[in-house]
């Protein structure tokens, strides 16, 4: 293996044994800089425990989780190197958003003005002087992201950041994280919102029952589950179309909505076959493999409450 860069996250043989539960079980993976990495797994898969071990909040039973080769506690200036959002509702209810951020600035030796800068970045300036108990869940998430950005870190770690965000908020967060990765930062996002991950992530790390299931670029991972692309065709002349497609050697499955799902032939070939057979087409669409399907297939039987 190559020597890890300082902004690369390296997890090696990480294990956490609670009294009766092995929450994380010999887990190894790497997270590269300049990309958004989705950290996926069913509830109770050990995602949060892994992130907490990475951040020095939970002590591993065995193995290491490091930034480059350094543990979080050994980083000389952690706030300027790593930003993390672990819980949305983690501020004192009676404190204002601005003071929550200033409190971190003071402990980390950052100027108070950084608080106002990140509030502007996350669009919370109008609510800066409101107490935390008056914040909506979406505003709490934004405040958490603001706190993570205070030190302008090279590495960002977010645990379920899309929880409680409205569609506009989710889109905002997606754009923000993508732009941060485009600046060369390392972005690790845990989530169970698979559709959102498909839009956001470049790489995925899939875990279940504390173990690594699959790691790699989203497109590769989509390629192996059930991910052979299927083509959906709709035609008023279903029978003639089925006959024409049979000559291509494709498998045709009727869908409940009256369209046909075709496996084993590409859209262009299907269109051509329909054209030569004189069949009228109303729809012809290639459907990408779906992360949700792949995820369910990969984690089948390994998920659930342990």
């Amino acid at each position, binding site marked *: 293996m190559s020597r890890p860069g300082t902004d690369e996250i390296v997890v090696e043989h990480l294990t956490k044994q609670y009294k009766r539960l092995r929450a994380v079980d010999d887990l190894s993976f790497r997270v590269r800089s300049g990309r958004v990495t989705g950290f996926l797994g069913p509830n109770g898969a050990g995602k*949060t*425990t892994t992130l*907490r071990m990475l*951040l*020095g*909040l*939970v*002590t591993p039973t065995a193995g290491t989780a490091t930034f480059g080769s350094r543990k*979080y*506690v050994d*980083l000389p200036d*952690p*706030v300027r190197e790593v930003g*993390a959002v*672990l*819980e949305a*509702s*983690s*501020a*004192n*209810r*009676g*404190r*204002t958003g601005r*003071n929550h951020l*200033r*409190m*971190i600035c*003071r*402990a*980390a*030796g950052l100027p108070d003005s950084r608080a106002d800068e990140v509030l502007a970045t996350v669009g919370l300036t109008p609510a800066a002087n409101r107490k935390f108990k008056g914040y909506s869940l979406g505003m709490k998430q934004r405040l958490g992201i603001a*706190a993570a950005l205070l030190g302008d870190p090279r590495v960002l770690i977010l645990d379920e950041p899309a929880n409680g965000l409205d569609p506009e908020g989710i889109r905002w967060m997606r754009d923000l994280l993508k732009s941060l990765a485009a600046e060369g930062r390392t972005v690790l996002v845990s989530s169970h919102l698979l559709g959102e991950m498909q839009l956001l992530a470049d790489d995925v790390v899939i875990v279940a029952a504390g173990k690594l299931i699959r790691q790699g670029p989203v497109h590769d991972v989509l390629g192996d589950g059930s991910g052979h692309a299927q083509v959906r065709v709709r035609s008023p002349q279903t029978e003639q179309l089925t006959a024409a497609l049979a000559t291509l050697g494709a498998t045709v499955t009727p869908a409940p909505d009256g369209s046909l799902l075709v496996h084993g032939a590409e859209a262009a070939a299907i269109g051509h076959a329909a054209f030569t057979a004189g069949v009228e087409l109303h729809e012809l669409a290639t459907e990408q493999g779906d992360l949700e399907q792949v995820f369910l297939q990969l984690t089948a039987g390994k998920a659930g409450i342990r």
Partner: protein
Amino acid sequence: MSLVNAELFKVRTTSLWWIMGIILLPLYAASVLANWAQYANSEVTGDTTDLQAQQIQAALQPINVATSLYTSGQYFGILIVLLLSAIIVTSEFFHLTATTTFLTTPHREAVILAKFGAAVIIAAVIWLFTTVVNLIVVPLILGNLDLPTQLGEPAVWRAIGLNALAFVLWAILGVGAGVLIRSQIAATLILAITYVAGTAVVSIIFALLTNFVAEWINNLQVLVPTSASQLMISGTDLPGSPPQWVGAIVLIGYAVVTGLLGTWITKRRDIS
């Protein structure tokens, strides 16, 4: 120092400090008035044992009246300091801010040390406030009792100094207790009840043990933090009690033990 500053900022930016202030002010005023009333009306009655009579005699000596008055507000001031110190720790868990705090400062012993520092500063501020007001008000009260101000007496200044030490030690004890009892409600209730009812209950228990088991047990009463604190600041040595410095040693012992234990536990514990 920036961590202590951050801890004080945390206290300053919620409503806790002024709520505690509002509670403290009337309690402080009441204790000054109560002390005044006590010395204005008390005299030695015939129906007491020799030891009790000696103790009351001693307490009524002008120097002891003065030290007691110049440290007015200690009882409730320390109660507030104790609760605030514990809450400095427990609120981190109550509001789930421990994660943010330990992400900002992964060296946990530094965080706990900063909390000790902040609690001691708060204790010193409250001590300073009560002491300054006492130095203004008490000479008037002593005049009313036909006693001199006695501000030239070293014993008075020693009592004021020991009062400061009591505030500081209880602040340390409070932070340690907050780490040990992480639940905010449990910590405040247990500390408040132990502090307020503790002394009375303990003296009853020790009186019974002394009467029915053995005389020497009474000497162990100083091991109870509230009794140790009282002994430490009781001004001049009263008959029948261990010397003042024993109380100081016991209280310092408690502060050191809870402080070290609290730091050790915080370092080891998983934050989840």
